[in-house]
């Protein structure tokens, strides 16, 4: 401990250099945490889905609806314990520049099947009783400046006209993949306004046992195979994963090239740290003459490198961990539940340790092995 002052004094000698080095380590690790979080968030979204929920779609494609009449037939199947349905609405608010998801659902069964959508009981009751009511994710409140109980008007893009809803409730999702920027309203009201077309975009099927999922999915698809609208049923997880894969390899490209460069910056930083250590050859020789052991000098140089790497890591990784929740970042709606995971922090910390070793080891060994006589020759 008594050598702490020596380390601090060394770090304080070139204050600017120390600060710059720490800052560039911090930036590199901040970027590392951010880019890796994009990948982990996308992966987490793809992992979302209750094991007991299946999704039934029109086999022809996502944009084709299914007859509402399928509902009763699915419900009658063995092993099906609950059923709800929803329809993509695609309405926009105001100038439509800020995209948010909105769909019509069979409210009572939908809220039962998705316990992840949490809202106060009185708001829930108000929504269920109000045919033209809607509930919204809590992010939409500040985003559009809406208030509870207010009427909001969406312009339909697929289903024409102005649609006015009363905001009856504000929900908080317990699973971030649900999204907190969604507006949900009554399917019955939707169906009435479009002239009782009797369509559902997709069915959510709750089953008794995850192990029965493949069998039940198959029996649903078999049932409608020769009808006008054949279905495709899969687990909710597969359904979610299909959205994540839609980014193609773009997100992968982005994060890999980003990560490669993070390491390049660390390389440059390590170089700068090594150069600063090299300047002190003479000084180390003096310390040796005074009686500092080889091992102690090795330790001192390593501690100095470690202190810089560690402060950079705390600033960069901690900054990412604190900053993103503070600004409620969700990638313009594309990355619901964006979070810096613990695994990212651990890997980041390991990178910092690696940096300490890479930048400290060479100068530290040099310091330990330095022949005093030769080194002192350069001192005037």
């Amino acid at each position, binding site marked *: 401990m008594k050598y702490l002052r020596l380390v601090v004094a060394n770090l304080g000698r*070139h204050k*600017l*250099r120390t600060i*710059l*080095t720490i*800052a*560039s380590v911090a*930036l*590199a690790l*901040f*970027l590392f945490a951010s*880019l890796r979080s994009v990948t982990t968030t996308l992966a987490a979204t793809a992992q979302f889905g209750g094991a007991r929920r299946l999704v039934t779609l029109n086999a*022809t*494609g*996502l*944009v*084709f609806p299914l007859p509402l009449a399928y509902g009763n037939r699915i419900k009658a199947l063995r092993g099906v314990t609950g059923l709800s349905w929803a329809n993509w609405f*695609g309405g*926009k608010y105001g100038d*439509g520049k800020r*995209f948010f998801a909105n769909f019509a659902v069979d409210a009572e069964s939908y809220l039962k099947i998705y316990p992840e959508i949490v809202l106060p009981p009185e708001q829930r009751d108000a929504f269920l009783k109000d045919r033209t009511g809607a509930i919204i994710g809590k992010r939409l409140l500040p985003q559009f400046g809406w208030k509870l109980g207010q009427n909001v008007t969406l*312009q*339909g*893009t*697929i289903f*024409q006209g102005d649609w006015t809803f009363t905001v009856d409730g504000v929900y908080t999702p317990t699973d971030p993949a649900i999204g907190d920027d969604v507006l949900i309203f009554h399917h019955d009201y939707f169906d009435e306004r479009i002239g009782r077309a009797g369509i559902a975009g997709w069915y959510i099927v709750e089953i008794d046992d995850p192990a029965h999922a493949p069998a039940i999915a198959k029996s649903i698809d078999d049932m409608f195979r020769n009808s006008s609208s*054949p279905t495709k049923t899969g687990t909710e997880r597969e359904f979610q994963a*299909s959205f994540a*894969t*839609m*980014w*193609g*390899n*773009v997100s992968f*490209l*982005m994060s890999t*090239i*980003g990560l*490669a*460069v*993070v390491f*390049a*910056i660390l*390389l*440059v*930083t390590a*170089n*700068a740290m090594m*150069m*600063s250590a090299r*300047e002190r050859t003479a000084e180390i020789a003096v310390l040796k003459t005074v009686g500092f052991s080889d091992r102690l000098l090795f330790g001192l140089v390593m501690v100095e490198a470690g202190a810089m790497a560690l402060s950079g890591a705390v600033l960069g990784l901690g900054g990412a961990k604190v900053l993103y929740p503070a600004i409620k970042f969700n990638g*313009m709606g*594309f990355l619901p539940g964006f979070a810096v995971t613990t695994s990212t922090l651990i890997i980041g910390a390991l990178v910092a340790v690696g940096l300490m070793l890479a930048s400290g080891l060479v100068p530290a060994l040099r310091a330990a092995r330095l022949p005093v006589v030769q080194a002192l020759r350069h001192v*005037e």
Partner: protein
Amino acid sequence: MIPIVYNVRSVVRRPVSTALTALGVGLVVAVFIGMLALANGFRAALAKTGSNTNVLILRKGADSELSSGLGRDVVSIISASPQVATAADKRPLVSPEVYVLIPLAKSFDTTQVANVVVRGVSDQAWDVRSNIKVTEGQRFTSGRPEVCVGTRLVQRFPHTGIGQTLHFAGRDWTVACHFSAAGSAFESEIWGENEQFMPVFRGDVFQSITFRLNDPHAFEDAQRALQDDKRMTVDVHRESEFYAQQSQLLGNILSFLAVVITGIMAVGAVFGAINTMYAAIASRAPEIGVLLTLGFRPASVLLSFLAESAFIAVIGGLLGCLFALPLNGIVTSTTNWSSFSEIAFSFRVTPALLLAGLIFAVVMGVVGGFFPALRAARLQVVQALR
């Protein structure tokens, strides 16, 4: 002036630290170019999709072809409009189109499914869109279950070879031809006859109507005339503007990411450069002292060290350009969230982008070198020479 040879020699004398600094700058530049090339390629694919002389008609309020719907009555009104150009055989150049998305499994991994655009067109469509060229096979024949496949789909999806059979909408379709469209988004589409697609997809309704303008300069007149027509409620877009607007959302996200990520990296690289230059100057203090004693002015020392830093950065910039260049032309694909369809496009590394990368490198070098150079210029001769 201190001769530039002095700086070049100094740089060459410490190859490792020069190389590391240049490499750092180079990688930042490479990522900068690479990410913008991605955004560029995506925008270019959609910008080329629309033609300036074509008009796209959607139902009022629809923001994409997917959410639109137009009846046959609208088609006849449009076809009879005086704004529509006519072909040599006096028929109007109008293509009422069916637009749907179907899930297709990819070749390399059949669990990966992409939403591919299936477009039902009239036989006029090939003339309305002048950039479409059949590269292999013959156009599909009216009345037969045949389709044509865009060239960008051929590599990535199975069963798309000429004569092979694609299965969708509960039917088998024989691939009759491949077509190219000058790198535009049409190359990621499957085309068939509109009258055949209507019954199997969404019934008796078109999603869009595209026609060639009689007078390319009269778009505003056409827009006013058609939108004011009381018999229909439509939005009239210039085809080029419509597709450019479709690329806005994702294009902006990509550019934004490119700027933010490279911005942060650039700051890191600049810090690295500052440290390297400070260390270089500290170890060369006696040299600088000699320069000052010889009578070089502090201003020339400042300039000299700035030039040295910029020189290292330019090496880095050139390295970055070299790294980024092989990206050019690489095809990648993503979902265009504005239309929900998958689009294949290639990285576009343009000379302008390379130049921007070099300038970016020089800026990093000059910014990183300024304070160290200032310190060098302010060195006290006596102290430096000790």
